[in-house]
C-alpha cells in the first residue's frame, strides 16, 4: 500500500522537466561538484612541496595554513587583497565597456535599418575568434614606449611622442584590449534577445502615448535585462580568469591580478593556495549569479514570443544610416584587421623585425624543410606540415561536436531551469551549470584526468580518448549555451506547450515541433561560442590530449617553445580562418541563417 502511494507520488511528480532536472543534476554533480570539492579539500591539505615550510607536518596532513596565510598573514595584502582589488576593477570595467559596445552594435544591427548589416554582424564576432593575446600584442606593437626596449612603438615612430606608461602598460590597456576581445558575447546574446522581442509590444506602448524614452525604459530594457545580466556575468567572469593578456601587458609595470597569482602558486607547486584563489573567483561568479536571481527572479516572467508573427519593426536612421554604418565598420576593422595584420606580418617576414622587401617570403607557410632560410628552423611550412593539418582537423572535429552537445544541453537546461523557476532546484541547476566557467583550466584538466583515468563504477576509463576531450570542453563551455538557453526560454510562455499537451502531444514532439523551432536562432548563437572556445582551448586540453588527439593550439607550443613566433602566428591565423570558414559552411548546410539570428 505504502509502496503504491510512493510510486504514485513519484509518477505524479515526474513531469518531463523534473526527470530532466534530476538527470542533468546528477550528471553535473559528477562533472562539476566533484572537482570543486576536490579543490576545497586540497586547500586544507599539506602539499608535497610544502611540508618543509610547515614544521612537523607530513604531506597529506590537514592544515588551515593556506587560508590563514591568504586572508590574515602579513603577506595577505600581496597575496590576496591588492590583486583582488585590481581584478575586480578590471573585470567590472571590462564587462561594462564590452556590454556597451556589444549592446550598441546589437541594437544597431537588429533594430535599425543601418546598411551593411550582414557584413557588420559577421565582422563583429571576429575579435573573439582571435586569440586574446593578439590584441595585446597589437597594442604593444602600436603603443609601447621605450620602457620595454626593442624597436620603437609605431605610434612613437610616427609622431615622435612617447606614450606614458599608463597608456602603454597596466590596467588601462588590459581593460581595453579585453573589452574589445569579449564584446562579441554581448553582441550575440543581446542581439538574439532583441530579435525575439515582438515589436508589437513597443508599438502598443507608443500607441498608448509613451515617449521613446519611456518605451525604452519600461518595455525594452526590462525585456532584455536577463540577457544583459548574463552578458555581464560571462564577461566579468572572463576578466577574473584570463591570464595571458594581464601577464603580458601588466608585467612591464608590475600590475598583478588574481590570475597571475593562481599561476604563480601552481608553478610554485602550491596548489592548495592556488585553489583558494580559484575558489575566490568562483565565489565572485556565484555572487553575480545570485544578484542576477535577485533582480530577475523578483520580476514576473516576460513572455515575448507568443507564437504569432514576430516581425520586428526597425528604427529608421534616415540620413544617419550611412555615416553610422561607416563608423561601425571602421571601428570593427580597427579591432580586427589591425591585430590580424600584426599576426600576419610576422608570418611573412623571414627575419622578425626586418622591414625590407627581400625579407618578405611565404617560407613559413609553404616553404620546405630548411636549416638555412629565415630562422633556419628545419620545419616545413605550416601548409605542408601534415602534423599541423591533422591537429587542425582534430580541433574542428572537437569544436563541432562540443558545440552541438553544448547547444542541445544548453537548451534543455534552459527549458528545465525556466519551467521550474522559483524552486531552489532550478537555481541549483543554473548555478551548477555555470561554475566550470570559473574554474582554472589546468586544475579542471588535472581533476578530470584523475576522474576518468580508470574505470569508476559504470563509467569506463576514458584515458587518452577523444571522448574525454569532448566531455571536458562541453562542461567548461556549457555556461555559454546554458546562459543563452535560459535567456531564450525565459521569453517563451508555457501556454503554447500547454495547448500542445491538451491535444495530446508527447514531450518529445512538443520539443521538436514547438520549442526547438522557435529557439532555432538562439540555439545556433548558443553553438557559436562553445565552438570558437573549444577550437582555441589550450590549457584545458593539454593534460588530456594524446598525440593522436593533438589539437591545433597544443601544437603551437612546439614553436613558441623556441621563439619561432612566425609558425605560432601562422597557426593562429589558420585557426581564425578555419573557424570563419566552418561557421559560414555550417550556416549554409544547416539552412539556418545565423546572421538572421542576429540581424542581417
Amino acid at each position, binding site marked *: 500500500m505504502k509502496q503504491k502511494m510512493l510510486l504514485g507520488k513519484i509518477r505524479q511528480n515526474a513531469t518531463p522537466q523534473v526527470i530532466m532536472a534530476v538527470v542533468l543534476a546528477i550528471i553535473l554533480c559528477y562533472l562539476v561538484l566533484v572537482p570543486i570539492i576536490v579543490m576545497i579539500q586540497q586547500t586544507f591539505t599539506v602539499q608535497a612541496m610544502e611540508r618543509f615550510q610547515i614544521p612537523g607536518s607530513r604531506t597529506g596532513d590537514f592544515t588551515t595554513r593556506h587560508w590563514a596565510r591568504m586572508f590574515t598573514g602579513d603577506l595577505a595584502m600581496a597575496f590576496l587583497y591588492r590583486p583582488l582589488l585590481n581584478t575586480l576593477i578590471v573585470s567590472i570595467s571590462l564587462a561594462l565597456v564590452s556590454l556597451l559596445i556589444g549592446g550598441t552594435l546589437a541594437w544597431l544591427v537588429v533594430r535599425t535599418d543601418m546598411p551593411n548589416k550582414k557584413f557588420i554582424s559577421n565582422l563583429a564576432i571576429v575579435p573573439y575568434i582571435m586569440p586574446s593575446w593578439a590584441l595585446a600584442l597589437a597594442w604593444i606593437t602600436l603603443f609601447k614606449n621605450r620602457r620595454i626596449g626593442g624597436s620603437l612603438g609605431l605610434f612613437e615612430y610616427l609622431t615622435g611622442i612617447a606614450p606614458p606608461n599608463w597608456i602603454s602598460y597596466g590596467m588601462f590597456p588590459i581593460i581595453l584590449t579585453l573589452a574589445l576581445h569579449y564584446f562579441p558575447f554581448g553582441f550575440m546574446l543581446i542581439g538574439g534577445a532583441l530579435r525575439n522581442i515582438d515589436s508589437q509590444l513597443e508599438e502598443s506602448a507608443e500607441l498608448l502615448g509613451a515617449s521613446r524614452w519611456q518605451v525604452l525604459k519600461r518595455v525594452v530594457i526590462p525585456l532584455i535585462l536577463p540577457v544583459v545580466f548574463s552578458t555581464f556575468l560571462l564577461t566579468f567572469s572572463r576578466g577574473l580568469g584570463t591570464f595571458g593578456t594581464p601577464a603580458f601587458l601588466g*608585467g612591464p609595470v608590475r600590475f*598583478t591580478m588574481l590570475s597571475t597569482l593562481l599561476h604563480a602558486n601552481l608553478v610554485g607547486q602550491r596548489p592548495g593556495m592556488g585553489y583558494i584563489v580559484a575558489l575566490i573567483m568562483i565565489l565572485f561568479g556565484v555572487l553575480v549569479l545570485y544578484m542576477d536571481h535577485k533582480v530577475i527572479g523578483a520580476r514576473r516572467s516576460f513572455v515575448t514570443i507568443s507564437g504569432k508573427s514576430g516581425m520586428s519593426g526597425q528604427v529608421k536612421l534616415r540620413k544617419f544610416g550611412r555615416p553610422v554604418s561607416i563608423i561601425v565598420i571602421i571601428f570593427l576593422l580597427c579591432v580586427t584587421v589591425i591585430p590580424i595584420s600584426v599576426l600576419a606580418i610576422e608570418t611573412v617576414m623571414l627575419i622578425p623585425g626586418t622591414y625590407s622587401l627581400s625579407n618578405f617570403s611565404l617560407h613559413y607557410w609553404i616553404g620546405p624543410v630548411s636549416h638555412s632560410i629565415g630562422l633556419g628552423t628545419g620545419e616545413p611550412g605550416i601548409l605542408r606540415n601534415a602534423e599541423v593539418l591533422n591537429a587542425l582537423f582534430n580541433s574542428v572535429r572537437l569544436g563541432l561536436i562540443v558545440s552541438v552537445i553544448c547547444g542541445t544541453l544548453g537548451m534543455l537546461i534552459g527549458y528545465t531551469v525556466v519551467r521550474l523557476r522559483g524552486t531552489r532546484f532550478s537555481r541549483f541547476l543554473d548555478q551548477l551549470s555555470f561554475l566550470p566557467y570559473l574554474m582554472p583550466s589546468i586544475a579542471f584538466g588535472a581533476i578530470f584526468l584523475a576522474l576518468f583515468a580508470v574505470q569508476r563504477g559504470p563509467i569506463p576509463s576514458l584515458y587518452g580518448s577523444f571522448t574525454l576531450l569532448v566531455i571536458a570542453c562541453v562542461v567548461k563551455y556549457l555556461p555559454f549555451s546554458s546562459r543563452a538557453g535560459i535567456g531564450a526560454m525565459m521569453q517563451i510562455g508555457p501556454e503554447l506547450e500547454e495547448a500542445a499537451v491538451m491535444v495530446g502531444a508527447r514531450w518529445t514532439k512538443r520539443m521538436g515541433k514547438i520549442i526547438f523551432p522557435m529557439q532555432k536562432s538562439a540555439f545556433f548563437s548558443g553553438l557559436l561560442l562553445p565552438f570558437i572556445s573549444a577550437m582555441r582551448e589550450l590549457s584545458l586540453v*593539454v593534460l588530456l590530449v594524446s598525440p593522436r588527439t593533438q589539437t591545433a593550439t597544443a601544437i603551437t607550443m612546439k614553436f613558441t617553445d623556441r621563439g619561432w613566433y612566425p609558425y605560432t602566428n601562422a597557426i593562429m591565423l589558420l585557426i581564425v580562418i578555419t573557424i570563419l570558414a566552418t561557421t559560414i559552411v555550417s550556416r549554409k548546410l544547416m539552412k539556418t541563417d545565423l546572421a538572421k539570428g542576429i540581424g542581417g
Partner: protein
Amino acid sequence: MLRKSMIFATVFLLVFTTVLSAAGRTEPTVAPTKTIYDASDWDAVMEAAKKEGKVTVYAVTSRIQAAVQKFTEETGIQVEATRLSEVELIERVYQEGRTGVNNVDLVLIEDYPSMKELLIDTGYLVNFVPPEAIAHIPAQYHNPMVFAYVNRIIGYNTEKHPTDPFTSIWDLTLPEYKGRVMIRNLAITGEHQNAFTELIRRSDDLEAEYLRRFGKPLEKVESNAGLEFLRRLILNDIIIMTSDTRIAEAVGSRGQADPPYGFFHVYSKFRDIPRLNLALDFSKNIQPLGYYYGMYIQLAGKPRNPNAAMALANYLLTADGFTQWSNDVGIYSMSSEISHHPDDMPWQWWEERLWTYDPEFAAANRGFVLDTWLRYVQQ
C-alpha cells in the same frame, strides 16, 4: 518533500564516493612495485625492445619529436612523443601514476625538486643509467640521469656598452639601472624560483660580494642577502616579461638610446644573434654570471615497454641522439663523445662561473622566494 530528499540522497552518495576516490594530490599511493631496469645484457634488452610496443615519451622540449625519428629508422621501435610544459608534465605524470594509468615510458623533465618530491619519492619515475652513460658520462651526472644542462645569463646591448658594464651582480640594484632590468616572470618560471634559493643558500658569498663592490656592509631588510638582493632588484623598478625570446630581442635590438638589460634569460637565444642582427652579449665579469639547471631522463616506475624505453634512453645520450640539441648553443650534454657548439664555450668554462641549486635546499626554500617575489612585485 519526498522528491527533494531522494534527489539529495542520490547526489550526496554519488559525490561522496567519487570524492573519496578522486582526491586531488595527496591520497596515499598504491604501494609502488617499481620496475628494476636491468641493462646488464644489452643485446637481450635490444632484442626484447624490438618486440615491445610504441614507446610513449613526455618531454619539456619539442625537439624530441625530430630526435626520435632516426631512432625509429634504425631500430624499428615506434615512439610517440608529447611536448608538455614543466608544470603540466609533472602534474600529468603524477595524476597518471596515482590513478594507475601507466601510460608513459620515458620522460625528459625539468624542475628537479618537484620531480623528486612528487614523482621519484612516490615511485612513479625511476632513475636508469644506460650503457652509453656508463661509458661516456661521468658518474656524478648519473643520479638523476642528466640529459643536458641549460644555462641562463645576464644580457646587455653592445651598441651602448662596447665592454661589459657590470662588475658585480649588485650593480643591477643601482639607481642607474632603475627601470631598465627585465626578467621573465618568476611567478611562472619554476627554475627561477629554484635558482634564487641558491642566492639564499650562499647568502654569505653575496654579502661578501656587496662589501667588495661597495666597501661597506650590506644593510638588510630581509633576513638574508639572497632575499635582500631579490627585494632590491624588484624595487629597482624591474620590468616583468613573459618570454625569454622577447627579452633577448628587446635587449639586443640595434639603434636604442637606452636599451634594457636581461636578467637571467636563457643563453640559447644567442644563436639568433647573426640572423636577427642583434647587438647582444652577456656579462662575464660578475659572480655568478648566471645559473644552470638540468634536464633529466627518467623512466616510468611501471612502464609498458621497459626494454624499448631503456633503448631510447640510451640512444638519446649518444651523439646521434643528441643531434637535435647539439646544433644549438646554450644546451650541454655531459657526454665525452659530444663536444660543445663551435660558437659556444666548453661546459667547464660555464660550470666554473655559473651557479646552480641544491635540490633539497631548493625544495625547502623556494616557497620563500615566491613569497618575497609576490610581496614586492605589487606596484
